[in-house]
């Protein structure tokens, strides 16, 4: 637990300075076919300082959190800023001043489970899978927990403490048919430590049954037909679309770096059915998967309504990009570890629900696909995106048909969003999003199902 008072180091600040103490704690338990292949914990903590001078930044960090080490880190970051500033002479204006004060702790209040209890939990899941699905050729179950604890103090007077935990259970099932392995993974869990995320293993059994049935269907599935199709992207894919294809292109630093979104500000970029928001901590009255109340520059985190009724309205900013564009800060500066500098990052990005029912959306398609689950996603400065699809079904004459084998979808997001004709009235958050823009950091992604036209890979 980070208890250190950082205010006392203010006297060592000579320029705009952020002082952040952080500890990331991980648990990772991996059971492969009943064997404990991994039984690991880690803890990584330390102090960092970031200093701004006329457009140049200096950064320094150290695992040592003694008073002497903290003073040294502040001095070293200041020297680095001075070094760059004296050579680059960027002469930029002062950063916007923000001084949010907040404390948020999502630690469990329940008695902590021991390692043995967590391993027994894995064992119970494994025993159920082994008993119920004997046709599986392989099974892997992983518990992954990350507790991210931060304390921030800035020369603007911002003070923040947060402890944001996330616990995920991955279940990978493999079935072999005609000597070909077929795999399907599913992720359960979300915000909270293990005790608040998982209760009895039995509560997961219905979901495991569903996962196995989808895998069985996939092993008997067909290749999709390559080309443009009417498709329904379920919440998982709508979430990754919101994050990868739109979210990244509208991050302030990426816009500054030439993203096509810079040319579309204020323009219609999507069907009027589409509203896309990067939520700070609360969405539609519910807690988001990765709540951020104060960002790592000491700015109060606000929702960024990026697309409103189809119009591109806002970019996400840290102080520097807000200054550059003359926009308001949005509280999107986030750092992954204590030795990482804050970057413009998303928090919880989602398309808002519409008014349609998923069943009606499926009925409305004569020949297309219902795409349910993604494996990965990438996007470009042009908003061209690619998502791996690992679970989906054909739609024939308004009804679900055969399952499809793994494929990829692609398109230009700002074109594709104009083809959206229906959005479902529900909303599902993905609980395991990780974003790898220089530093790996947890993010929330979510949405309803959307009906659109998309290019699908296949034979």
């Amino acid at each position, binding site marked *: 637990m980070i208890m250190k008072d950082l205010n006392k180091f203010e006297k060592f600040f000579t320029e705009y300075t952020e002082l952040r103490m952080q500890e990331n704690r991980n648990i990772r338990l991996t059971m492969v076919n009943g064997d404990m292949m991994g039984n690991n914990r880690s803890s990584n903590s330390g102090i960092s300082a970031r200093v701004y001078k006329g*457009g140049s930044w200096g*950064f320094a960090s150290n695992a040592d959190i003694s008073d002497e080490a903290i003073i040294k880190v502040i001095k070293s970051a200041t020297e680095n800023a001075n070094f760059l500033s004296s050579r680059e002479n960027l002469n930029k204006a002062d950063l916007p001043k923000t001084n949010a004060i907040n404390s948020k702790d999502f630690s469990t209040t329940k008695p902590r489970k021991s*390692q043995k209890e967590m391993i027994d939990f894995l064992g119970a899941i494994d025993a159920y899978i082994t008993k119920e699905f004997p046709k599986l050729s392989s099974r892997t179950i992983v518990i992954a927990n990350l507790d991210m604890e931060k304390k921030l103090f800035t020369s603007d007077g911002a003070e923040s403490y947060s402890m944001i935990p996330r616990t995920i259970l991955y279940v990978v099932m493999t079935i072999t048919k005609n000597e070909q*392995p077929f795999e399907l993974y599913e992720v359960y869990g979300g915000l909270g430590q293990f005790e608040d995320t998982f209760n009895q293993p039995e509560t997961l059994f219905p979901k495991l049954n569903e996962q196995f049935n989808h895998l069985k269907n996939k092993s008997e599935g067909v290749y999709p037909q*390559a080309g443009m199709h009417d498709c329904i992207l379920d919440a998982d894919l709508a979430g990754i679309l919101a994050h990868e294809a739109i979210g990244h292109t509208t991050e302030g630093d990426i816009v500054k770096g030439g993203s*096509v979104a810079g040319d579309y500000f204020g323009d219609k970029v999507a069907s009027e059915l589409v509203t896309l928001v990067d939520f700070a901590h609360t969405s539609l009255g519910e807690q988001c998967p990765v709540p951020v109340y104060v960002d790592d520059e000491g700015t109060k985190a606000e929702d960024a309504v990026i697309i409103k009724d189809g119009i591109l309205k806002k970019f996400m900013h840290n102080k520097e990009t807000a200054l550059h564009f003359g926009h308001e800060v949005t509280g999107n500066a986030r750092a992954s570890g204590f030795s990482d500098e804050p970057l413009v990052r998303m928090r919880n990005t989602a398309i808002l629900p519409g008014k349609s029912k998923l069943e009606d959306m499926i009925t409305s398609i004569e020949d297309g696909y219902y795409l349910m689950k993604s494996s*990965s996603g990438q996007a*470009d400065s042009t908003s*061209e995106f690619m998502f791996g699809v690992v679970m989906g079904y054909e739609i024939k004459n308004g009804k679900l048909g055969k399952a499809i084998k793994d494929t990829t979808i692609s398109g230009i997001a700002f074109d594709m969003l104009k083809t959206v004709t229906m959005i479902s009235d529900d909303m599902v958050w993905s609980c395991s999003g990780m974003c790898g823009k220089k530093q790996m950091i947890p993010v929330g992604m979510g949405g309803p199902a959307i009906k659109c036209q998309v290019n699908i890979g296949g*034979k």
Partner: protein
Amino acid sequence: MNNKEILIYARDTLLKAGAQKTKCILTKREKNELNVVSGEISLFRTTFDTNLSLTAIIDDKRGSVSINKLDKENIEATAKQIVEMAISSKPDKANDIAENQPAKEFYGEPVKPDLDKMYTRLVEFVKYAEENHPKTIIRMINFDFTSTHSMFINSNGVDYSITKGIYNFVVVFTSKEGKKTSSFNYVAHVSKDLNTPFSECGNIDKLITESVQQLNAESFQGKFVGDVIVTPECMDNFIGSLTRYLYDYPLITKTSVYKDKLEKQIASNNFNLHSKPVSNDIAEGYFVTGDGYEAQDSTVIENGILKTFLLGLYGANKTGEARAVNQGGSWEIDNGEKSFDEIVKSTKKGIILNRFSGGNPSDNGDFSGVAKNSYYVENGKIQFPITETMISGNLVEMMMNIKEISKERVNSGYHNYPWIKFTGITISGK
């Protein structure tokens, strides 16, 4: 306590707490980094990282913890925690540590950065880009020197010390003209010195020049089965996917497409793949594997024949196959006989694949993804840069369908790759 004393104290504390076998690794890393954002040198970063990784095995049960606080109190508490974790686990006879080997110290120059030269080289590159490629935005450069000092001991007497340093340079760029934006591209280069300007390293200048051409990328209708010439910068996508099948997890779970292919043909005859972690040919290597064995260079695929899996100690014990002499990476592919130009000339219909945006192939090798920063080739000539183009195929079949390998190679410091032409790939436009 000095580093060695910390490590010995950790090992002895673990043994005293009840561990029967232990593995202890202490790593200290100093990084000096300069960042460019949107063409401006904007950040100078100095970080000191420490990691103490401790593993205990008790009655074939294993537990591991890594920490970065090295005081005696924390080491003692951690040792107690690891022993409890191991006792809570399940026995697995495959859990083991490396056997005793002669103690050794490894030293990879340079170990200290030349900060003035780092700054000069970066300023020089930013200026080069501004002057030679005014339509290109240097979106980001991460340029650092990382020096690492690691020590590895275990309860069988393994005792290694490694000191090394390396310069890492990654540049991401996009071109812009009016409302036209090109796909971003990136190049990574690592080196042990700063003797060469970055604009002259590998294909950096060529790729930035092409980025400007790609402002006018065109899409095409329909699909065809044709040739794909994979560039050295894009090759690691496919080598990474290929070698992924050779590690512990897919072989233990028997999901690897190559599980029964040792000493069998898995690629065309002209394909040779080496892993060279200790060779001077590849700047970014390693001296000791994660299990605690001195690494050796190896040939993984020779004339298309799979010569070794990439199993670690646990995977080898679990599968009954031989442990690999390294953990892969630092890849080098033997060059061929034809020049890149000759390969293009002999191509009837296909694309040059500069970057691939796609996920890992399925367990059976099927893959599909988007061809980025790529070019359409017809009748032996590069025609135009392409956009909205997907490729799909099967990696296992693709490796058996290598048509030509270039005599030129690009050594990025991570890998040394030629251009390779694969046939029979489905290429589809809009």
